[in-house]
Structure formats: structure tokens, C-alpha cells
């Protein structure tokens, strides 16, 4: 016992019911949707916005045209799916990784630096190396809180948040120092050359191959978690670390550590894909909080990869819609965070209500 004040099992991860009684769950889900929509309408009205105009802008920006779908919604969904998957894997293993944002930024910085350094000699190979570097950097950024948790019992909620701020300032330093563009005027890196960029998936849109990568990541994560021994170990450890430890044959700290690193790796790749597919450069506000939104993505997706894919697209639509809402109705962009918070709160409350009902029906039956 290393004696840190934070015991890793003080915070049971959120768990989804696997075989819900369909109607009851639907009722709870509808109540949740109502709760989110009503609170949102209230905030908009209080802010003096016309709910109808804002709502129409939201829908138009999210799905109003092929362009909205393929150049806005799905493009924004790519980092959200990857980072959401990162958070889902961590949460499944009982790790509260709130640090996807920092891991994403670390990945973006590493991808930029690698692509810029290697493109002259490697050409297209620099793309692959950049993406690899982003995964390694994301994993490295997660390794610090993972080690602090294992060695000193430091609560990862706090340590990953600290790593987020450190990443933010590190990017700030890089784009004003070693990675600044040649004229040294703007706080951003040089643009990475054509050869090191992700090709477009659909010509005429902004949808890039990163979307296909995200789909592959979802499929692999789903297969590993559901159908392999490694995935089973992660789920067992996440369900109850103490039970997993006393069952023996299971190195709980090692499983936790590995899941944490994989989580960081995925979040890092999200940053790398964003640089190679969308921004083509590193700068301060590269991520509008994708790493935080990823928490909502993972929870709404019930921590299950296929649903994380769907909820990633949903939140991509929300972000795209919010951008349109700001353009056309003047609604501040940060409202998205309020929506995310409401959705998370609705989910945790719904789970509690569901669990209580089930408990009552079990007792009534017995």
C-alpha cells in the first residue's frame, strides 16, 4: 500500500444496463431528451434569443444540406469518435480519463513536428510517421497520470486535468518558439505539405480519410473489447477491481495501466488526424474542447464502441449546428458545453432512476 489518499476504487465507473426493459428505458430516455431541450430553450429565452430561429439554424448547420453533412458534421465527428472511443475504453477499465484534450493536443503537436521534419525526405511516408507519432505522444501524455495513479495512488481526474493545462501551454510555447512559421509573425506552425496530408474521402467535400480510420478504430475496439481475452480483462477490472484482484490470475494494475495508455494513444491519434486532415498546422485553439466533448460522446454511447460511433456523429452534428447557430442567430458557441453537461447529467440521472426501478421490481418479485 503506497498510502496515497486517492484510492482507485473510490469512484465506480458509470455502467449501462445491458438488457433494459425497452419501454421503461424509452420513457426515461424521452424524459432525458425533454429535460435537455427544455433547459436549453430556457437558457436561449433567458439570453434573449428566438428559440425558433436558433433551432432552425442548428438543424440547418447540422444536416440542412449535403455540404452540412459531409463538410461540417462528419468532419467534426472524426476527432470526437476517436477521442470518445479513448474515453470509453478508459471508463470501461474504471479509469476516469478526463485528459483526452491534453492527449489530443500532444498528438497534434507531435504529428505536426514529425510531418514537417520528415516530409522532405519521406514524402507520403511522413503522413504515416506523423500519425504514428501522434499515437505515441498521446500515450506518453497519458503515461504520466497512469504512472502517478499506479505508483502514488493519485486520482486521475485531477492529474489528467493538470496535464490538459500543461499541454495547452506547451502548444502555446511551441507555436511561438521551435515550431513557429518562418516569418515569425503568427503564433502557428508552418503548413504541412500536400504529400503529408490525409487524402479526401469524397471529392468536393472536406471529408477526409480520417473518417475511415475512425470507423476502423471503432471496429477494432469493438472486437477487442467484446471478443478477446484482453478486452474481457479490461471489463472485469473496470467492473470491480477488488473482485478481479481476489479472483487471482489477473494483474489489475497492469491491465489498468495498459488501458490508460491505449486510451491516450487513441486520443493522440485524434489530434494527429485533425492536423493531417483538417487544420494542416498547429496553433493555439486547434481543438474547441474535443477532448471534453469526448466524455459526453462516450457516456451517451454507453461506453460501447458501435454506439460511440453514433454518438460521435450526433455530437459532430451538434457542433456543426452550434457553429451555424452562432453565425446565423448570434448564439455563443460555448452553449455546446451546456448542452453536453445537460446530456451527461440526464444520462447519470436516468441510470440511477433505472437502477432503482429494477431494484424495486426485484424486491417486489421476491
Amino acid at each position, binding site marked *: 500500500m503506497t498510502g*496515497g489518499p486517492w484510492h482507485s476504487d473510490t469512484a465506480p465507473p458509470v455502467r449501462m444496463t445491458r438488457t433494459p426493459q425497452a419501454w421503461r428505458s424509452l420513457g426515461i430516455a424521452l424524459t432525458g431528451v425533454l429535460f435537455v431541450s427544455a433547459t436549453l430553450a430556457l437558457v436561449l429565452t433567458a439570453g434573449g434569443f428566438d428559440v425558433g430561429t436558433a433551432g432552425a439554424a442548428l438543424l440547418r448547420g447540422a444536416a440542412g444540406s449535403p455540404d452540412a453533412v459531409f463538410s461540417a458534421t462528419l468532419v467534426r465527428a472524426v476527432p470526437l469518435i476517436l477521442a470518445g472511443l479513448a474515453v470509453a475504453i478508459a471508463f470501461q477499465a474504471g479509469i476516469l480519463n478526463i485528459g483526452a484534450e491534453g492527449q489530443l493536443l500532444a498528438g497534434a503537436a507531435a504529428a505536426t513536428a514529425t510531418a514537417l521534419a520528415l516530409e522532405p525526405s519521406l514524402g507520403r511516408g511522413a503522413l504515416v510517421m506523423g500519425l504514428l507519432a501522434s499515437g505515441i505522444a498521446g500515450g506518453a501524455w497519458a503515461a504520466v497520470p497512469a504512472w502517478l495513479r499506479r505508483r502514488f495512488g493519485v486520482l486521475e481526474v485531477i492529474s489528467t486535468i493538470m496535464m490538459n*493545462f500543461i499541454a495547452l501551454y506547451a502548444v502555446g510555447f511551441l507555436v511561438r518558439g521551435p515550431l513557429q512559421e518562418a516569418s515569425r509573425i503568427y503564433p502557428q506552425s508552418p503548413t504541412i505539405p500536400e504529400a503529408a496530408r490525409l487524402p479526401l474521402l469524397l471529392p468536393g467535400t472536406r471529408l477526409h480519410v480520417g473518417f475511415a480510420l475512425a470507423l476502423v478504430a471503432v471496429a477494432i475496439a469493438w472486437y477487442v473489447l467484446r471478443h478477446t481475452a484482453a478486452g474481457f480483462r479490461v471489463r472485469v477490472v473496470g467492473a470491480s477491481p477488488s473482485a478481479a484482484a481476489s479472483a487471482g490470475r489477473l494483474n489489475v494494475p497492469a491491465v489498468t495501466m495498459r488501458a490508460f495508455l491505449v486510451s491516450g494513444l487513441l486520443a493522440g491519434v485524434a489530434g494527429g488526424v485533425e492536423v493531417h486532415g483538417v487544420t494542416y498546422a498547429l496553433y493555439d485553439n486547434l481543438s474547441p474542447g474535443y477532448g471534453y466533448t469526448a466524455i459526453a460522446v462516450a457516456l451517451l454511447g454507453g461506453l460501447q464502441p458501435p454506439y460511440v460511433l453514433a454518438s460521435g456523429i450526433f455530437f459532430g452534428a451538434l457542433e456543426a449546428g452550434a457553429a451555424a447557430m452562432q453565425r446565423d442567430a448570434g448564439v455563443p458557441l460555448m452553449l455546446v458545453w451546456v448542452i453536453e453537461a445537460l446530456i*451527461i*447529467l440526464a444520462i447519470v440521472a436516468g441510470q440511477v432512476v433505472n437502477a432503482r426501478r429494477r431494484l424495486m421490481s426485484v424486491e417486489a418479485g421476491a
Partner: protein
Amino acid sequence: MNDVVTPFLEATVRTATPLALAALGETLGQKAGVINVGLEGVIIAGSLGAVVAAGAGGVTIGLLGAGLAGLLTALVFGVFVLWLRTDQIITGTALTLGALGLTSTLYHTVYGAGGAALSIPTLRPVALPGLSFIPVVGPALFHQPVVTYLAYLVAGVMWWFFYRTHAGLALRAVGERPEAAQTAGIDPRRIQWLAVMASGVLGGLAGGSLVLAQVGTFTDGMSAGRGFIAIAIVALGRWHPFGVLGAACLFGVASALQFLFQSTGSSLPYQLFLALPYVLTLVMLAGGTRGARAPAALAQRALTLR
């Protein structure tokens, strides 16, 4: 020598004040078994409350507004965590996200898209007669805005409350063994509600002091992780009011270093100093909390005997 050391110590105590207030509030909640990771959200709500209220009615009203905003944010947390019994950490994370988003949205909605820099009245330092004339440390400790004295007072009162009153004993019992406390005729739910509400007021005041005694205006996300640093300070201060006060000062040093190096024209990149408090938090959590023990029932969801 004094013209370097004294301003440095003065900046230390000034930047430590919001951290101390927030961490003392969090200590109260954690002693009752509730960890509020949404403290960051409580602080930013307090900051906006302070700006709005101080703009309307001066600094005193500003502090009241900050406390009230913190209280309301804690009320939301309480409804989910204490009434519905949702997971404390996930709920707190959502609260932080929501409060950061809502304060930014409201601020830009009310004060225009650019968020026009408001000029609001701020708290001036008040010298405590006699004490402020102590060489070197006197001005640093006793020539401060009134919120700093409030932090000293809260720490003292909290120590007395925890270790010298029956109510304080009851609160600590709830944080350690809620079932046992319940058997002894204590209502854990009521105690946790009171602790969360009081800690909300203190968190709000922390946000208020950030605005009224330090920055002088509101900016998006100005709490900048202070809520999370404050949670680390609670562990570092070993859940003891005076320990927490001391730990907060340590973090004040990290921020004050920033001003010191800027004034000496150091060639080191300034992002290094901006990142220092966060790095320090990690180092301190790793090295400084050995042997410390959190309240046993911290973050426990099931509370009462069935």
C-alpha cells in the same frame, strides 16, 4: 532586499486567497464524504456573479452575488449527487463543463459578442493596524483585501467547528462512517446538504475574490483549473483547515514566481511559468500526500441503512 521579497510574498498571499477559500469549502464537503469535482464550475459561477453584482451595486454586493452564484451551482450538484445519488465524479465533471459553458454564454449574451471589458469596483487592500508594520511578512499577510482576512477567519472557525463542536464531530462521522453516524441519531443527508451548500458559498466567494481582488473583470474560463488545484490542495493540506491554508500559500508561490520572473526580464518562455502551478500540483500530489488519509466514505453513494 525588502523591495523584492515583500512584493513577492504579497503576491503569494494575494494569489493564494481564492485557492484557499475554494479549498476550505471543498474540505468541508469532503469531511462530510462529498467530493465536488465541480468546484471549478462553482468558482467560475462565483466570478460571473461577482462581476454582475459588483457592476450593479459595488464590491459588497459583488461578494454577495459571488456567494449566491456559488450556492446556486452547488444546489444543482446537490440535487443530482445528494438527492438522486448519482456518481459524484461524473456529476462534478458535467457541472464544470456546464458552468464554464453557461457563464461564457451568459456573459457574451449580456455584454455583447466581444464581451466588452467591464470596469467594476475592486477591493482595495486594507492594512490591519499594528500587524501590517511587522517587517517583511507584515505587509504580505496583513495589508491585503478583505477576502484574504475572510480566508484566515474561515480557516480558524472551521478548525474550531471540526474539532471543538458536536456538529463538527457529527459532520466528520458522516464522512467516515455514515451508517454508524445514522445509528447514533445523526441525519447524514441533512449534514451533507448543509456541507455542500456552505462549500458552494465559499467556492463562489473564491471566484468573487478572483474578480474583485485580482483580475478586475470576467473572461471566459478565468477559473483556469483553480477548482482542480484546490482539490489537490485539500489532499496536500491533509483535510485540516490550517494545513489547507498553508498548502494554498505554496501554490501562491508558484503563481507569484511568474510575476517575479516577468519583472526581472527573464529570457525563459513565459508559458513555462504559466504551466508551473499545474506541474507543481502533479509533483505535490505524488510526493506530498503520502500517509495522508481521505475521509473513509468519500464519494460513497449509498448513504443510509436500508
